[in-house]
């Protein structure tokens, strides 16, 4: 099967420096001191940052010009030791690469000549009241979040016993009805139909509703009825804003040749944004209670996290029995002597 068939798009992410300034002005205690023209010109494409010490000293090979350049006390003190001309050259080494922006940490005084050069090259320069390490840490966290790879999926995302189940399957197979049934059973809906997925780390993907306004979230389309509002129908306990996607449940139209799992020893996986997650394929047969099956999938997943795989344990015990001698004579039901009805 095509594992990525429910993917819609995967845009390359970047944000303007003006967005960083707008979002993090208070948090990072930023003050714009030069290069205002560059705010809507320069883009951030990576969460990595750079300390431009080597470039200031004249070594500009492989200079990471796409990164935010952080000037801490080391860089500022070094620039102070230079003559006016040397300092101008040193700053020019960095600024002429037109990095997205420069941030001076620790509320240090900007070196002489920086403002003029930054304005010339239209490179925004900020001053931050934060200590260098803290600034870098908070900045990276923010950029990691803003620049995280994202994609959009079709399906339903429901929190079932704390496990994020992503229901996928062809149109009209009953994903939304299954989600509604799960909500009825006390579980929480994250999103129906279009789900935005964000990669938060190499192993974590978070899903949430792609709806642009909170009032548009948590609606489900039920065929024959139309759009229903889950929050209005079931209240606050029935909704969730975001959830880590932990298991993909694929509803598959049942056919005679469909190869579905009978034992559960071999785990299947799929990938979303490069993150491997377990895949469970459920054949949809009339009269089958899908929500009940989803609950079992979630609980089985929780057991597996704790290291207990029911199917594997079952098989191990079976193999142990079958490989011991005189299997028929073995007393395998010791309890039955004490439980005569």
């Amino acid at each position, binding site marked *: 099967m095509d594992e990525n068939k429910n993917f819609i798009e995967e845009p390359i992410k970047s944000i303007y420096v003006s967005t960083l300034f707008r979002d993090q002005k208070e948090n990072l205690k930023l003050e714009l001191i030069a290069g205002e023209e560059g705010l809507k010109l320069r883009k951030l494409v990576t969460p990595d940052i750079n300390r431009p010490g080597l470039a200031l000293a004249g070594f500009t090979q492989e200079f990471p010009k796409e990164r935010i350049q952080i000037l801490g006390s080391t860089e500022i003190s070094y620039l102070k030791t230079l003559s006016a001309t040397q300092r101008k050259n040193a700053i020019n080494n960095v600024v002429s690469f037109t990095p997205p922006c420069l941030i001076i940490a620790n509320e240090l005084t900007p070196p002489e000549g920086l403002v003029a050069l930054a304005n010339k090259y239209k490179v925004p320069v900020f001053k931050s009241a934060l200590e260098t390490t803290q600034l870098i840490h908070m900045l990276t966290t923010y950029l990691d979040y803003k620049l995280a790879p994202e994609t959009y999926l079709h399906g339903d995302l429901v929190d079932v016993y704390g496990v994020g189940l992503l229901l996928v399957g062809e149109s009209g197979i009953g994903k939304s009805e299954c989600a509604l049934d799960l909500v009825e059973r006390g579980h929480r809906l994250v999103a129906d139909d279009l789900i935005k997925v964000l990669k938060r780390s190499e192993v974590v993907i978070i899903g949430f509703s792609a709806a642009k306004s909170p009032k548009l979230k948590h609606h489900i389309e039920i065929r024959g009825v139309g759009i229903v509002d889950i929050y209005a129908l079931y209240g606050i306990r029935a909704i969730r804003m975001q959830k880590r996607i932990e298991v993909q449940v694929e509803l598959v139209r049942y056919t*005679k*040749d469909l*190869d579905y799992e*009978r*034992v559960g*020893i071999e785990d299947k996986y799929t990938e979303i944004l490069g993150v491997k997650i377990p895949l469970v394929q459920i054949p949809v047969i009339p009269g089958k209670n899908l929500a009940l099956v989803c609950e079992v999938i979630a609980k089985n997943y929780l057991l597996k996290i704790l290291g207990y795989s029911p*199917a594997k344990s*079952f*098989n191990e015990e*079976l*193999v142990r*029995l*079958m*490989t011991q001698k005189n*299997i*028929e004579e073995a007393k395998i039901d010791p309890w039955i002597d004490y439980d005569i009805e």
Partner: protein
Amino acid sequence: MIQEKIIIKNEVGLHARPAAQFVKIAEKYQSKVRLCKNGVWVNGKSVLGILTLAAEHGSEVILEVSGPDELEAFNELKKILEAE
């Protein structure tokens, strides 16, 4: 109806993997499939039923297939039971 005694040749017996394979094949056919060990008959299309037999290496089971496609079904299922 075809009925035949078969000796299990799998090293550890009829465990989960071969049983799952057996059930998948059995389900392809319309015929009714049954397995018997020591007088206990189970449905050949139920994996848990087959596993409950705990048919170890060297044990004897009876494979019974009856229905319109019994011959093909029987031959295919017999191969799985006799696989090493």
